[in-house]
């Protein structure tokens, strides 16, 4: 049931930063709310985040942003290793390894990292995404040095045992059961759609991992994976909050500078072939009581003007109850109580580095055919393919983006901000891009929006995924 406790529960003190156990691919039993998907930007007078950006001699990128509005600091360490480039035959390994990062390092035994942070009044977690794995804490401001020391300790190396590995293999398999195997619509569509829509194995495998692959992982795999990817010159350290940047630089030098860099890891070719045929796949979900439908298209290359134009298209078509698809599918047709989706279902349109899908999805009643819904989707897309968005439509999209960026910049957890700074440093070597997001959107003309709709929202660039209910619609539970 919806309600105060759902809508505003993240706001209640007792529940602050807990719950969300279903957010996939995270370490924690207690998890901070993830950054909202599809967060966006400002215009003249938009956000202006103060950013200090530099690099240690060993290649570690450092982003500092001071915000004294609350006496806390948020620390994020971002490694340029996401689930899509994990080794073949070891599906799910990037995420399993994220769990291992909490199992002990030279000076912090198992559970000691977590207890150190919690015992200092902080919260801690990690998550694995397409192109990065991140580790983050929010702590009282005066404990910053302690946390920097701890993150440096595990960047130097892990000290884990076979017993720790087996323990986390069991935990991760339970996570997969929790979020996928024992749930109706488990993994739909965030896990299943990339496997249909993409051709390149790196983009198209099971990111959570086959249980047999998770079981097959060895300590030697973990050692090799750490040595390949967990190096200072493949990472970004972000510190945001109430701290003295000059003092932070001293501590960062003290704890991180001596960690030796290693050769750059090989980066596989992630390119997707241009899609030239409409794909469709259906599967039976034995736990689902109603049909599900997801539709995805490959999006323009990240960071290009077309990509920003596509972001506006996303706002106009899919984000919010004012969007065209919400109004058509939910408000007018009544197919579903909501339609979800966006660019990058596990993040936003900026925090990845490779091919990506724009996906929409809903759960509907059996008397409505997928074809009827697709026809309505096509009609809304056709409108924008045939004529540019109106001035009020475009202005509304930009307003939503501006408000989203303010929320990002104003959040006291600073997770969304740290995440974008980490991603822009990692993928673009330019965290200050965060201050230019809104300008990127404002440079888009109505004609460009229509143009990307024509070029990307093509029928032969589309993948349709159908969930067939395995339970009767009546769904009586014994």
């Amino acid at each position, binding site marked *: 049931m919806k309600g105060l406790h759902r809508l505003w529960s993240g706001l209640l003190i007792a529940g602050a930063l807990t719950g969300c156990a279903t957010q996939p691919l995270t370490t924690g039993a207690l998890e901070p709310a993830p950054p909202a998907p599809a967060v966006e930007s400002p215009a003249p007078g938009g956000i202006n985040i103060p950013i200090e950006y530099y690099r240690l001699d060993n290649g570690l990128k450092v982003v500092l942003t001071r915000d004294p509005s609350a006496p806390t600091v948020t620390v994020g360490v971002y490694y340029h290793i996401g689930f899509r480039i994990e080794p073949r035959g070891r599906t799910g390994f990037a995420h399993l390894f994220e769990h291992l990062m909490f199992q002990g390092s030279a000076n912090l035994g198992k559970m000691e990292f977590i207890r150190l942070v919690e015992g*200092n009044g902080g919260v801690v977690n990690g998550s694995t995404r397409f192109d990065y794995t991140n580790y983050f804490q*929010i702590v009282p401001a005066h404990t910053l040095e302690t946390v920097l020391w701890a993150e440096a300790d595990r960047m130097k190396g892990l000290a884990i045992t076979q017993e720790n590995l087996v323990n986390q293999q069991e935990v991760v398999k339970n996570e997969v059961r929790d979020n996928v195997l*024992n749930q109706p619509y488990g993994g739909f569509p965030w896990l299943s759609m990339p496997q249909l829509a993409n051709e390149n194995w790196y983009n198209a495998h099971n990111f959570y991992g086959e249980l047999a692959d998770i079981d097959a992982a060895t300590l030697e795999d973990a050692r090799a994976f750490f040595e390949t990817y967990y190096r200072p010159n493949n990472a970004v350290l972000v510190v945001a909050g109430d701290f003295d940047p000059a003092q932070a630089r001293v501590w960062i030098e003290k704890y991180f500078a001596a960690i030796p860099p290693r050769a750059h890891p090989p980066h596989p070719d992630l390119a997707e072939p241009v899609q030239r045929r409409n794909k469709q796949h259906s599967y039976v979900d034995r736990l689902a009581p109603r049909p599900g439908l997801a539709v995805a298209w490959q999006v323009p290359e990240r960071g290009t003007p077309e990509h920003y134009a596509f972001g506006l298209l996303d706002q106009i078509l899919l984000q919010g109850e004012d969007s065209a698809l919400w109004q058509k599918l939910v408000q007018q047709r009544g197919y579903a109580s909501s339609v979800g989706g966006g660019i990058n279902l596990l993040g936003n349109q900026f925090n990845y580095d490779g091919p990506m899908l724009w996906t929409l999805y809903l759960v509907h009643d059996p008397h409505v055919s997928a074809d009827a819904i697709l026809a309505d989707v096509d009609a809304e897309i056709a409108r924008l393919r045939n004529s540019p968005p109106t001035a009020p439509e475009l202005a509304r999209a930009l*307003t939503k983006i501006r408000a989203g960026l303010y929320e990002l910049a104003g959040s006291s957890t600073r997770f969304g901000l740290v995440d974008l700074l980490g991603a822009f440093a990692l993928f673009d070597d330019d965290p200050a891009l965060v201050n230019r997001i809104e300008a990127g959107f404002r440079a888009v003309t109505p004609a460009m929006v229509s143009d990307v709709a024509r070029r990307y929202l093509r029928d032969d660039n589309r993948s349709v995924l159908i969930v067939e209910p395995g339970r009767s619609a009546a769904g009586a539970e014994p």
Partner: protein
Amino acid sequence: MKRILVLALAFAMLPAAADTRELPPASGEPREFSLPVKETVQLANGLSVTFVDYGTVPMVTVLAVVRTGNIDESESTWLADVAVEMLKEGTVIRSAADIARVAADMGGSLSVGAGAEQTSVGISVLSEHAAAAAEIVADVLRHPRFPEAELPRVLANLERSLAVARSEPDSIAGEALAKLVYGDHPFGRVLPAPGLLATYDIGAVRDFYDENFGARRTRIYVAGRYDRAALEAALGRAFGDWRAGVEPTVLPPKASETLQLQLIDRPGAPQSTVRLAVPVPHPAHELYFPTTLTNSLLGGTFGSRITSNIREDKGYSYSPDSSISARRGTALWVMQAEITAEHTAAAMTEIYREIERLQREPPSTQELDAIKAYRAGLFVIGNSSPNGVMGQLAFMDLHGLREEFLTHWIANMYAVTPAQVTDIAQHFIRPEGMTVVVVGDLKQIGDNVRALPELQGARMP
């Protein structure tokens, strides 16, 4: 302004002594933390508005919280949800599409939701639209049109949500647990019976609204950056002449203190969904602070005893968690875990062992201090955002808590002793008074769970 110094502990957890490991560097001096400034005013009809000045960006949230919800449904389960969903379907001057568009033009979207005891209508917008935000929240709350033509769609949506809920192990367990714990009280009816939703017509929706919405039950919270005078005037115009309506319903539930067990079959389930619940002191009770710390220490944090045991030691579960689920005048300690099917009984045994260990011996000062430091940190984080502050104020208003709840929070928490924690475990977190629900593959787990010594003599519905 009340200034509260949060005493965080320097490296509360040290690596074991007598080895060659490096120790974490000591923390610096804790900073002072001030609760955000707030002020409450009364509109002409007595409706309270609390203004919180907070935030660094030009955004403002206007949130109206009405003391109604499922508590007022009697046997018409989800009628509150239907009525509140229908609020968004249009007002006398706006269609649903208008509401969505106007909200988006201000940089926001209207959030509407019914809860057990509180119903909220709120929106966050760019600061320049603060007055318009007040107006649209009032319009939706005060002048719903309840268009009959939209009701079948809203009901179909809720029917679909219900079907999905009945296929989710968490919802199945939650429904059974609520029924066993709260019995015939509305809180005991979490999901409507088959066919019930279809009986609600527009008259029932309108009646629910007319009987339950009004100024006496409503409080408004404003937080963010805004022009105070202009917003106060706008709120006065928008809400100042709203009818008073009735006082909030007083209907405290009686929560079961009897040992009860329900096993629900989910053939082939790879995990068992386990819930244990028992009444504990509620937020207005003098023992609330030791209770909430006991929860954090026992199962409510990543580093807690139960999580350390069944996750980090044994790998039985990914996300075990205990929490305090509060209603006005009552509260439950609820333990939840999704456990590998084959380890169901073993994991439940470990949960009981951790409870019994805490009943037997007080935690060390060091362990309890770490929990206090953790909760102090969360207090600062939670009180450092406009939404966090508003959520907390709504919580305090529901439970009838005074300002001291906030201003003395840190001091009250730090005053809790290890012996008090053990007292709470002994007197309240009693396995022999628990309601236990397990949803899983009974062919595989049923016998082992039924054989657990703690469940002998349980009433089995």
